[in-house]
């Protein structure tokens, strides 16, 4: 490869999760400043990119697939990214986001809404403006091929650093046994 080395095109995304994985990513803190020169953040919560771009090297995806929007975005991410990482327990297993799988969408919406005045976001009118909820929340690998898994709720910054620095060197991600835990 010719110098200067091209920057790693990094993208992150939030599907059905709590943003805690992204917070843990930000907890890299000053290490983020150090690698700011070797990465280009092309998509994610902190940038104003409007559409998931083409030619992404690494995509860290937080959260499980919970609705039609997540499903569509994840498909696009897969098509446009070289390495797709299941980032955190929700992405890896469904985790807390999938606790709703014990109930039907209808039961959930009935239980949470229809109490106060107004019209509940439940039914035909709602589906026209709001993305449909999937009957079951799915981990990423049920929907697309996943290249690497980073477990943890959230994965602690050390774990993220292990993965990210390997990917920056163009190597595969190897986590030590104690880095492969849930929770």
């Amino acid at each position, binding site marked *: 490869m010719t110098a200067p080395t091209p920057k790693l095109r990094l993208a992150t*995304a*939030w*599907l*059905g*999760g*709590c*943003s*805690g*994985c*992204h*917070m*843990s990513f*930000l*907890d890299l*803190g*000053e290490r983020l*400043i150090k690698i*700011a020169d070797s990465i280009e*953040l*092309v*998509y994610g*919560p*902190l*940038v*104003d*990119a*409007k*559409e*998931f*771009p083409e030619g992404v090297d690494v995509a860290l995806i937080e*959260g499980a697939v*919970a*609705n039609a*929007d997540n499903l569509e975005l994840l498909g696009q991410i897969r098509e446009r990214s070289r390495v797709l990482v299941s980032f955190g327990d929700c992405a890896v297993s469904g*985790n*807390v986001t999938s606790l*709703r799988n014990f*109930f039907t969408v209808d*039961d*959930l*919406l009935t*239980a*949470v*809404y229809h*109490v*106060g*005045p*107004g*019209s*509940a*976001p439940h*039914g035909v*009118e*709602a589906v026209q*403006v*709001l*993305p449909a*909820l999937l009957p079951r929340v799915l981990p990423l690998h049920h929907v697309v091929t996943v290249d690497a898994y980073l477990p943890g709720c*959230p994965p*602690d910054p050390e774990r993220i650093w292990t993965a990210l620095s390997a990917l920056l060197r163009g190597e595969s991600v190897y986590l030590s046994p104690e880095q492969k835990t849930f929770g």
Partner: protein
Amino acid sequence: MTQTITIAPVTRIEGHAKITIHLDDAGQVADARFHVTEFRGFEKFCLGRSYREMPAITERICGICPVSHALAAAKAGDALKGVKIPPAAEKLRRLMHCAQLVQSHALSFFLLSGPDLLLGMESDPKKRNLIGLLEAMPGLAKEGIRLRQFGQDVIRLIGDRSVHPAWAVSGGVREPLSPEKRDGIAAGLPEAMSTARKALKLGNEALERMAEEARCYGNFPSLFMGLVGGNGDLEHYDGTLRMVDESGSVLEECFDPSRYGDIIGEAEESWTYLKFPYYKPRGHETDAGMYRVGPLARLNVARQAGTPLAEDELRSFRQFGESGGPVQGSFYYHQARLIELLFCLETMAALLDDPEILDTHVRSHARTNNRVGIGIVEAPRGVLFHEYHVDDNGLLNYVNLIIATGHNNRAMNRTVLQIAQRYLRGGRLEEGLLNRVEHGIRCYDPCLSCSTHVTGRMPMKMELYGPAGELLDSISQSS
């Protein structure tokens, strides 16, 4: 015969949302809606579980304010047990909560809204982010990152991890604080304090530069609600729930939190998963029952800050209110957040100075003695309610969560409408407009992870539709 403009999703906020702007036949803005598009269902799937699990489960509602959820859940648990927690436990809870407010407010100012405030609303969208700020103002951006990190590090020191610490429990907290950890936290305070003061200065300068925005970004009368401490001091952990009216007069002073249902109702709309809480006596049909919560509301309901540096700032902040009344413009949320940041750092210093914080008795034990427990705290974005009902075995049979951003729902919708009316010209979509409308939402620093018990945040696209549903205009930012 109306047209609709859709902005989806909204960027640099903490959650999944879109905005639609509706034009009338004359091309004038008739209505604007802020749609929250995700749903997670915690109120349903927690049923049948033990309330003792709730701090750990509800933390997972939101990675930005997990400590607030854990504390509200633990306080509801204290009430179910009917215990008074040890004094050191309360001080430690306060300490960790301050740390979270610091990290959350620093995140909002430096990483989410800062790029608009410091680089400009119409600056290059590709650079209008943290990386752009690092390029343009490297020293400041680094200090901002370090300030947020300070808050996170304190949470980790006290509770073992910075996100979702397994630490607050009903009856108190799991671990006392060691002198070494106390000293470690104290050592970081001076730098944090100096960054906070720098941010306040920059915030004040931005307000001067952006007088126009301050005038029309969510500037309207409304009620305000927040907790106040003894003497009416600024308060984030425990206190009296106060509601003031448009002129600042006290409407409600709720000493018994279990009464919150008497003053707050929750309306619903078919086009958003976020409910619309309103002040019950005034009804939900009009804006009369609209109230705001969060940093601006807390400063408006408090009589004084209660710490010296924040008090000075609060005094000069009051000038933004008309004739001694509440500060009405939502653009001032930014500055209110910075004043709170300073307040939290001062409060942390005072807590660390108190020898009682090292007391090792940090947990009271009891069985479940009550059937209903309500926990209220001031999360970074405003009042947070957790209400639990349990059966004889302590298993939940009713859960209601009212989340900070929810309270502001009606005000956020009004704000988008106000900005669209001011800046949309001839039904044309421009990038600057798009960012302005989004910034109106960012003033509230909405945490949609919390509000819908969900999260996410993505890029945005704005579309203008004609009466027959044909696409008239569209704009999006390329990556």
